[in-house]
């Protein structure tokens, strides 16, 4: 008698029973599949990406000034795990004219997209909201070196991303959020009594700091 896991079935019944059962399952699944196809016709019908999707990095454009956000501070280059970027900075002529607050501005920027592993560390470490992970991902070329993109191309991709998603600089977003929270707390405090979750969480954070120091 074949023992299957914790099931014991007479030998002669087992194959017949199972073949019929297997057929039923497959048939049921097929019928179910016919009703609602799951296949995506990818190259013909483009698949939309999620808002957080990390495509190739691109540089952003400050419409207010107008100039790139990037000052060429090299922090992304130092933090890149694959050393796929290079950049140089120059004195900002717009600052001398008084139209910009940026003392230095990006002069030359190149990303070798073949080396890029799309980790998003550059975006995380950037202090000037200058780099974003765009939604661009279909960028294959026929040359081995064909994926080296320079400043104008990066700004163009960044611009496309900014327009498509209505990008707001993360520092501005964080400030808005903090202001809103402060306003909410200021409004709540006179009413008093309710201890918010944020207040409860604070001692744990303080503890962490003490431990890590």
């Amino acid at each position, binding site marked *: 008698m074949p023992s299957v896991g914790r099931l014991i079935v007479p030998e002669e019944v087992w194959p017949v029973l199972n073949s019929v059962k297997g057929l039923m399952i497959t048939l049921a699944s097929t019928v179910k599949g016919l009703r609602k196809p799951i296949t995506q016709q990818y190259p013909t019908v483009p698949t939309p990406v999620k808002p957080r999707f990390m495509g190739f990095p691109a540089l952003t454009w400050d419409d207010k000034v107008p100039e790139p956000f990037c000052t060429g501070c090299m922090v992304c280059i130092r933090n890149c795990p694959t050393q796929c970027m290079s950049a140089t900075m120059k004195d900002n002529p717009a600052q001398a004219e008084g139209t910009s607050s940026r003392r230095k501005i990006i002069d030359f920027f190149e990303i070798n997209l073949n080396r890029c592993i799309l*980790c998003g560390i550059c975006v995380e470490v950037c202090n000037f909201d200058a780099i974003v992970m765009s939604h661009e991902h279909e960028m294959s070329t026929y040359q081995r070196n064909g994926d080296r993109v320079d400043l104008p191309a990066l700004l163009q991709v960044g611009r496309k991303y900014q327009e498509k998603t209505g990008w707001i600089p993360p520092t501005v977003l964080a400030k808005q959020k903090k202001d809103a929270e402060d306003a909410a707390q200021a409004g709540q405090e006179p009413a008093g009594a309710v201890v918010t979750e944020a207040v*409860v969480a604070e001692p744990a954070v303080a503890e962490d700091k003490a431990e890590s120091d």
Partner: protein
Amino acid sequence: MVEVSSTIHPDGQSVELLLNMGPQHPSTHGVFRMVLWIDGEKILGVEPHIGYLHRGSEKICEGEQYHQIITLFDRLDYVANFNNELVYCQAVEKLMGLTVPERAEYVRVILCELNRIASHLLYVGTIGLDAGAMTPTMFAFRGRERVQALFEAVSGARMMHNYFRIGGLKEDLPDNFEQMIRELLPLLAEDIEESDKIITFNEIFISRTKDVGVISAEEAIDYGLTGPCLRGCGYEYDVRKAEPYSVYDRFDFEVPVGLDGDCWDRHWVRVQEMYQSMHIIEQALEQMPEGPVTSSLGRRLIRPPAGEVYVRAENPRGEIGVYLVSQGTDKPYRLKVRPPSFCNLSALKRLLKDAWVADSVVILGSLDIVLGEVDR
């Protein structure tokens, strides 16, 4: 290496010969090569060749800063990325004495268990292919695709997430996560059940896998097998239960174990684990608190104190261990990974001895190796 010479058998009938399998063979789950020494349909010996995917990850780690290494751990076991990130982050956190925000721990557990399901679904698909069934792959990949879509919404990437950080997470979950996962879970439960029903008790599948590649629990422990391969032998050992890390001690779940230690039992354990993972996710979603998820370190450079630490965790493939030596600088002095796939693969020689050639693919498939992790 096996000696290259063919001799005629005394009975004048069969010939002993060398059969090369891989590294481009589709059933070797990557770039794995076996040299089989066969007599007719019987395997006399096997010589596994690994290293085709060797990238020197451990050595690269010595030249990268702590926050950059997370990207390398994504690429070890590229089917269960979150689980790998988790064990590395835990190693550095243990060295620094960091406590992770409560919410971040729950998010980590949810994502890791989802990844376990995704990984096991891939296994169900590939074992089906190995045993000669095409259909389960389609159903399994449909479920896996759904999980990966959620991962993309959460972390921005389907596979190489780089989402966990030392001391927390990169950012909080998206606002519609609750809604997304509530939509996903019933569909996923359906998918798991379907891929289970379609293959596990299938007559042909059972005859291909039952009593094939049998190994006893004692032998499995001697070979260093962990995870479903060990539990399939009937030995109840799961790091999540034996030495609970993260917040696993707060969940109620069972550790499924097999009976005979053959390919079918290893398969059955994995399928049951998917149901248990669903159970854990549901509990974690209920218990998940609000609060911060990012590290208290902020954006300071991570510089753990000098010392060494060993951390282990339960990956879908078994027990992964990270041994980390720090000298107080911003880069680790040495980082050693104990990959579950590599240790599980060590039993291959023993399992394939005196097996049939046709079973070799099923036995290899039932070990569920990922070559990115074997070769590192």
